[in-house]
């Protein structure tokens, strides 16, 4: 699994609250049976002027000139700055896949939806929660300064601004560990195989109806 250790990148400010998973990756793109290729359809409905179809070539599509992601100054951004409740809605992991495939390594916002958070950790994307007023300041600074970059250090839990100022952030130890080490969660869990089997046999004895035999 992909690691996250640090990222020094250009910031893209997405000034919109409650960005939901349909906004991040519209449902027609969920028809893909692959994990990759979603980057070109990230924020599809805001990003392009026409309607996006799965598997279609996007190179000739008309771009929405008013959408922040299409502005020349934000090309190559790898850090997304967002507002509250980013990632609300569906459990679709295609949302972090799209962010990752586009090139975002990190999202900073005042709050994130729960399922979305877990999905990002599994894809090596670092989500940073900062207080609303600090996020607002970052929005102002990003707009005011072309080429605004931030340097994120997961081990130290710091974000360094262009002027050298530092912000610190909180993150759960378990999530930090998974991201820093790129841990494969299934292999890790299977290390507890014996314990799972033991639980299962006790549970089967206690609640036998939960272990159906072949039914008609």
């Amino acid at each position, binding site marked *: 699994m992909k690691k996250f250790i640090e990222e020094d990148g250009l910031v893209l400010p997405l*000034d*919109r*609250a*409650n960005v*939901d998973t*349909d*906004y991040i990756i*519209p*449902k*027609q793109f*969920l*028809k*893909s*049976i*692959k*994990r990759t290729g979603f980057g070109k359809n990230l924020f599809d*409905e805001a990003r392009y002027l026409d*309607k996006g179809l*799965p*598997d279609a070539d996007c190179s000739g599509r008309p771009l929405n000139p008013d959408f922040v992601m299409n502005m020349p100054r934000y090309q190559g951004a790898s850090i997304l700055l967002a*507002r*509250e*409740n980013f990632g*609300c*809605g*569906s*459990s*679709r*992991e*295609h949302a*972090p896949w799209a962010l990752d495939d586009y090139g975002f390594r990190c999202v900073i916002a005042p*709050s994130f939806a*729960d*399922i979305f958070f*877990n*999905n990002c950790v*599994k894809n090596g994307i670092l989500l940073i929660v900062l207080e*609303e007023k600090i996020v607002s300041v970052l929005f102002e600074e990003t707009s005011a300064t072309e080429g605004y970059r931030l340097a994120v250090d997961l081990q130290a839990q710091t974000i360094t601004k262009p002027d050298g100022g530092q912000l610190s952030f909180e993150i*759960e*130890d*378990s999530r930090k*560990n998974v991201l820093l080490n790129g841990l494969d*969660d*299934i292999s890790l*869990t*299977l290390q*507890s195989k014996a*314990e*799972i089997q033991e*639980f*299962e046999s006790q*549970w089967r004895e206690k*609640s036998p*109806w*939960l*272990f*159906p035999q*072949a*039914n*008609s």
Partner: protein
Amino acid sequence: MAAKTLYDKLWESHLVKNQDDGTSLVYIDLHFLHEVTSPQAFEGLRLAARKPWRADANMATPDHNVPTTLDERSRGVEGIRDLVSKIQVKSLDSNCLEFGIDEFQIDDPRHGIVHVIGPEQGRTLPGMTIVCGDSHTSTHGALGALAHGIGTSEVEHVLATQCLVQKKAKNMLVRVDGQLNPGVTAKDVVLAIIGKIGTAGGTGYTIEFGGEAIQSLSIEGRMTVCNMAIEAGARAGLVAVDELTIEYVKGRPFAPSGELWEKSVEAWKDLVSDADASFDAVVELEAAEIAPQVSWGTSPEMVAPVTGAVPDPANMANESKRNNYLQALKYMGLEPNTPIQSIMLDRVFIGSCTNSRIEDLRAAAAVVKGRKVADNIKEALVVPGSQLVKAQAELEGLDRIFTEAGLQWREPGCSMCLAMNADQLGDGEHCASTSNRNFEGRQGFGGRTHLVSPAMAAAAAVHGHFVDVRELALH
């Protein structure tokens, strides 16, 4: 011994171990799969040369992509015109075959939307932990099960280990006191709750829905409420087990029987929060104050009573929220202070895992019986949640009531809830929908979704705009 909430009990009974990093390993009794969020998980298993830990703890069905016209469905999976959709459904079929997983295929007589068929078949049982790669898995909590949505990586993890790595959420009680007025339904209750606490109000919590109004809902009504727990940010929603729950489960195809039934019922009686259990947060609503609800915006929290109006964001103190609401009004093409009942509609959709069960169809049929769909409605679809619901509805003559009124009677599937199949809104069209999400573009590019109850959607179909169902004389 400390008093426990229902969530505490369900969590603790499934706890395999607490891990050093603060996460827990939780055993999963039942895993539902559908075609959209499983292909990459099966691919992952294949690449790692792993087999499912317990093939029999899984149940699959294709529901998001499937077409709902009889013509396309009569040819089974080959009838799916969209090539990409067809590949996805065929992938589910072949994956289930390869890994030995039970699947209700597209032409199975028991086929339907995954969150409709699970309880219907008696696979969903009280006291279980249940997951699926779909956020509306919270639906199953209506039967006193701990049920929630997961992403594709977690789908793979559950297949491989029968467990999930999780952090325990906090406990929230949403109590709806008193009795609902006639014409006010479970859908209105949950929309009112989301309107009150917001789409992030339940984030980090498991919500238990309680109070007199919740307990007096039927099991199908409780499913509607739990279905939308995720729209309030809570991954899981629960209703305590009572006589209604036991009655509902009894005799279903996969439900225990004989001696096992007696044992299970005995165990299920404990699936209530202890009297003195404490919750981290409590939200209270008065049932009598809840009117039929209509969502006017692009988030389930943007709701108003049908007797009310679209709000004026100019009055909002919080700048971010104000911008959010202005953006919503712009997308929906609505002016502030527009009375809800003046909103004209283009299409009506009665269906989805929220409201497509037999009681929902009966409620809608009672409104349209003997009436006709209004001229300004281009299309009104009724999509039963499963083949069994469809058969029951046809036995009761509901299909004829709908078609005589000018609504279309379709085959089961997710349909217009989300535009992954042919049932979609056109750009700028307003739709009265019994589904669960009204995000921008959800039902189609530029589509404008208004979330309502089945009776309200039916009334909107007949009148061409929203009306207060409480004022209609019903058959």
